[in-house]
């Protein structure tokens, strides 16, 4: 600015010369720059509001794609979930049809169910059922305790302890580690054909025809009987010491009368002969001629938890297979 600048003073009607010193010049330039800066920032903010940097734009796109895909996959999952609900429902209906009882698996029951959990589940269904179950359970527990004392007494008398132990029925008659083949147990059950309550004096194991059947203790083969009626093809083993075990509805025999067998030896194969609705093994244990609950005679194979579990499964299974 080469020429001096004047300001009009209306009060005094005079023209005043403006100071052009350095300080005011600097001040003016500074305020001019500051103003530009502020404006720039404001413009920036407005611009940023409406537009994206390339980086921002990229992330925005990415997010949108993720969101879209998430919705797509979520919807698809819902459809799959519907199919799965259907699967679960048919599963439960099949179980009910075969076992005439409410399925105990529901939402993925794992292997760590303890009795109290299963009891909680039972109490959802039927008070009577719970009462019956808990009294059956107590009965079994008591009998087991008594039985153990019996063993102690018998062992005390028997000089040949080792022989007594190996002859005792002590394992499951078919491979059933995970207990999935456990079906109806000892006691009153709905008969699968007559559809009435009937005493079921043994334990059923569901298994495909041809599954191996084991002798559950050292014994002598007492009876090998072929039949198309009633119990079907049957084997009876005599373990000495008063115990006998019976295996029914067999497909074929592997042993003959009089033969000596050892615990774990294959004696026959599972079938569907006689009065039976599906291939399964009907297993009985009798002491001095009286049928006893076979579930007490798996102690050599089952852990305490498995024992509890098998009791509950065998009790809950409302319909026997024979």
């Amino acid at each position, binding site marked *: 600015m080469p020429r001096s600048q004047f300001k009009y003073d209306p009060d005094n009607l005079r023209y005043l010369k403006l100071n052009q010193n350095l300080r005011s010049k600097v001040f003016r330039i500074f305020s001019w720059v500051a103003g530009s800066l502020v404006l720039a920032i404001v413009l920036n903010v407005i611009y940023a509001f409406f537009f994206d940097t390339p980086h921002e734009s990229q992330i925005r796109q990415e997010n949108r794609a993720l969101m879209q895909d998430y919705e797509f996959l979520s919807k698809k999952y819902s459809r799959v979930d519907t199919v799965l609900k259907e699967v679960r429902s048919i599963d439960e209906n099949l179980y009910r049809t075969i076992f005439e009882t409410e399925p105990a698996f529901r939402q993925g029951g794992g292997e760590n169910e303890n009795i109290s959990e299963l009891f909680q589940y039972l109490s959802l269904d039927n008070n009577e059922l719970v009462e019956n179950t808990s009294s059956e359970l107590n009965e079994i527990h008591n009998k087991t305790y008594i039985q153990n004392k019996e063993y102690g007494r018998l062992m005390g008398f028997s000089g040949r302890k080792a022989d007594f132990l190996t002859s005792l029925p002590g394992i499951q008659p078919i491979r059933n580690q995970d207990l999935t083949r456990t079906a109806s147990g000892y006691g009153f059950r709905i008969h699968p054909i007559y559809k009435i309550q009937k005493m079921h004096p043994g334990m059923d194991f569901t298994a495909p025809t041809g599954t191996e059947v084991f002798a559950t203790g050292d014994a002598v083969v007492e009876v090998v009987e072929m039949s198309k*009626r009633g119990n079907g093809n049957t084997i009876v083993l005599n373990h000495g010491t008063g115990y006998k075990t019976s295996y029914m509805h067999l497909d074929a025999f592997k042993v003959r009368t009089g033969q000596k067998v050892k615990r774990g030896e294959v004696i026959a194969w599972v079938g569907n002969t006689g009065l039976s609705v599906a291939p399964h093994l009907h297993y009985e244990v009798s002491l001095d001629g009286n049928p006893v609950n076979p579930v007490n005679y798996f102690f050599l194979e089952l852990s305490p938890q498995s024992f509890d579990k098998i009791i509950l499964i065998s009790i809950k299974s409302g319909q026997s297979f024979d």
Partner: protein
Amino acid sequence: MFKGKYIFNPETLRFETNNLPLKKRLRDYSLYLGLIIIISIALRIGFDNLIQSPKIDLFSAQNQVLKSEYKILNEKITKAEALLVEVQKRDDKVYRSVFDMGPLPSSLREAGYGGSEIPYGSLASNGRDEMVNKTALKLEKLSTKAKVQSGYLSDLYVLAQSQQKLIASKPSIQPLSPADSFRITSSFGFRWDPFTNQRRMHQGLDLAGEIGLKVYATGDGIVISAEDGKNGYGKEVIIDHGFGYISRYAHLSRIDVNRGQVIKRGEYLGRLGSTGRSTGPHLHYEIIFEDKTVNPMLFYYENLNPIEFNSIVAQSSN
């Protein structure tokens, strides 16, 4: 900024307003604007590299939320997969065993999945995001397995229903109550006739008892004949049970059902008699399977006491 400014014009010796010509002013303003824009852009670029814009913070936060939702979805899928595996195990070990079928080969359970690729192209992220791809793949597998399993289980269920019908229909009890006294006087099959010295085929089972003993249907079915057929069987009732099974109750003293009547196992149909070609009061009981007579003793077992038999009779009127 320049308002109210005057300059001294030495030529006119007057104070004049310092108005720059329009062009000059425009030039100044546009220079000014240009400067602002340049500063803006410089700022933008500068800050973009140095400071996280709030938008990016927002997007990052959204991104995190999305990723955790994907994680949850993945967990749901994993749980569903585990459940399906449990159903499959039960299917193989229990259900298929009960219906005498072998376990399903795993290739069939995974059927339809094999070589098909998950169409990443249909995904908005187009295969770029690993998390999305993993989830989409898992979900596709689960979807296929679920559908397949649903199909197989439905088939089994239908089979189960028809099996239940068969169990109810196929003759499975004795036609006379165990509370009544009767004896088997002639069983099924060839027997030696002492009077004619010939082998004769006896088509059924003879149960001798007092005239008037109640006779019961041995399986659910439909009565297809309820009269004296004038064929030597005397007053007889014939029931069609479906599944190829027919049962016949002959020499009755009276019939108390009608042709066409739906009948259930344990339902009373008539009374033992000696009508037709009969040498004494007895029930002649026959079972015919696919047009051939078969041994009726294979169709019942004497494991029902009178009380249990009566329960079955009582049930038939429900």
